[in-house]
């Protein structure tokens, strides 16, 4: 055998070995642009609640993990194309998404809220403090009616492909003029510039932005949960199947569920939630 052949065989053999080692690693996709859930520090490293939680869960599972960045609008397609094995990106568990992927049990939940700039006509709107769309009832109906009136003719901004966009387009608050953005950062920018009259996102996304930028962003109206807002945030995983890869995905789901249970019992999720959100958002 000449040297040339030998080299090629060695390279191929090493690739095979490396490939097998890496197959055991879990790749987790996150957005890195939705603080405090997940974001990036000044030098570009991924940080935030879910980045730390992912590391904790992997430690419990005794598996090696890498966390990779993925734009929000391509998150589910990227999971399906096997660019990574799990999503931890503040993604709420909704029936619509469950048609395509599956979720672990929820690890944290957090309400959504409208935000405006101080001085907006919406400040001081009279609604209950929080409404749960799943519960319904006269209070919810009344609040939605107030909101329908308040939002009529206003430009409401939100991130594309989110529960917030689904809610605004559901007709619960009439037909509002929705404008969608690729990232929450861009929503915040256009809220402060005045291009958006109102914005809708996770309440902490706004309070975090107001804290860091010093802009006069303020929450208005009720906080939202239930219904279009889903049932908490969980780990998104491909739906399992009967083939080897499908079984691997099904096992990954089980492992994540177990790890989340353990982390919850040990108080790890609560601790991380308080650290990043300022309150216990764990579930």
């Amino acid at each position, binding site marked *: 055998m000449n040297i040339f052949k030998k080299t090629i065989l060695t390279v191929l053999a090493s690739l095979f070995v490396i490939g097998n080692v890496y197959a055991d690693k879990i790749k987790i996709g996150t957005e890195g642009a939705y603080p405090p859930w997940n974001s990036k520090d000044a030098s570009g490293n991924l940080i935030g609640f879910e980045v730390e939680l992912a590391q904790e869960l992997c430690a419990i599972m005794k598996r090696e993990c890498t966390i990779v960045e993925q734009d929000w609008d391509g998150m589910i397609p990227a999971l399906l194309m096997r660019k990574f094995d799990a999503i931890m990106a503040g993604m709420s568990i909704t029936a619509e998404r469950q048609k395509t992927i599956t979720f672990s049990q929820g690890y944290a939940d957090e309400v959504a809220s409208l935000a405006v700039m101080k001085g907006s006509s919406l400040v001081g709107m009279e609604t209950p403090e929080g409404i749960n769309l799943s519960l319904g009832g006269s209070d919810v109906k009344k609040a939605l009616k107030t909101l329908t009136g308040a939002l009529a003719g206003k430009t409401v901004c939100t991130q*594309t492909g989110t529960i917030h966009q689904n809610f605004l387009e559901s007709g619960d608050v009439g037909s509002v003029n929705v404008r969608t953005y690729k990232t929450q950062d861009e929503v915040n920018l256009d809220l*402060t510039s005045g291009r958006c009259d109102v914005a809708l996102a996770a309440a902490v996304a706004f309070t975090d932005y107001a804290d860091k930028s010093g802009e006069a962003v303020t929450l208005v109206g009720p906080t939202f949960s239930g219904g279009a807002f889903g049932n908490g945030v969980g780990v998104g995983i491909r739906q399992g199947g009967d083939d080897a890869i499908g079984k691997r995905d099904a096992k990954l789901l089980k492992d994540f569920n177990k790890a989340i249970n353990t982390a919850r019992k040990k108080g790890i999720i609560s601790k991380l939630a308080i650290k990043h959100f300022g309150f216990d958002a764990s579930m």
Partner: protein
Amino acid sequence: MDFDLMFTSFPKLLGATVVTLKLLSASLFFGLIIGLLFAILRLNKNILINKFAYGYSYLFRGTPLLVQIFIIYFGLGQIEYLRSTFLWVILKEPYWCAIIAFTLNTGAYTSEILRSAFQTIKPGIIEASKSLGISNKIIFYKIQIPIAIRQSLPAYGNEIILMMKGTSLASTVTLMDLTGVAKYIISTTFKPIEVFIVAGGIYLFMTFIIHNVIKFLEKKYSFNS
């Protein structure tokens, strides 16, 4: 392959093509005016005017269109003073921001295309016209401009196609153009391949039309026939 999705998304994408065509025609119209103006300034012998026109084309040809659109949309929106002026009426709308960015970009390229076309006109043609006693003004409007436009047709056709594809960046500033609607459909169906194939097909078809119109014009105004 989800062929059903391709069929159902086609009419939605076709509707969004109207927005794309509006953006394209508006920016090409204003861009041609700016391009012609700056091409003439480039030929001016005054060094200040010349350098100014060169600076404009250098700036807009030297930076990515995406950066330009972001600076105009998100950048200018952050300047508080600007928001209190009448300019904000225009800059508040994503539609106008996109048209301003596209116009300035295509204007820079068009000015270069027209400038080089003016420079290829043989001096003999102008000298001959002068010897016939035709005034400078009429030489410029009736001889130089028509020749320059004919000369620049192939390069300008290319620019139209590039600009048509460039309009897809309008979706980054919330506009629901062809790419914007494609992304919107993907955000609810999670099937990028099917939707982008249809959107890509529509872009390809538009290129086909533009290409053939330019080819027809080139033939019609050919020097050799």
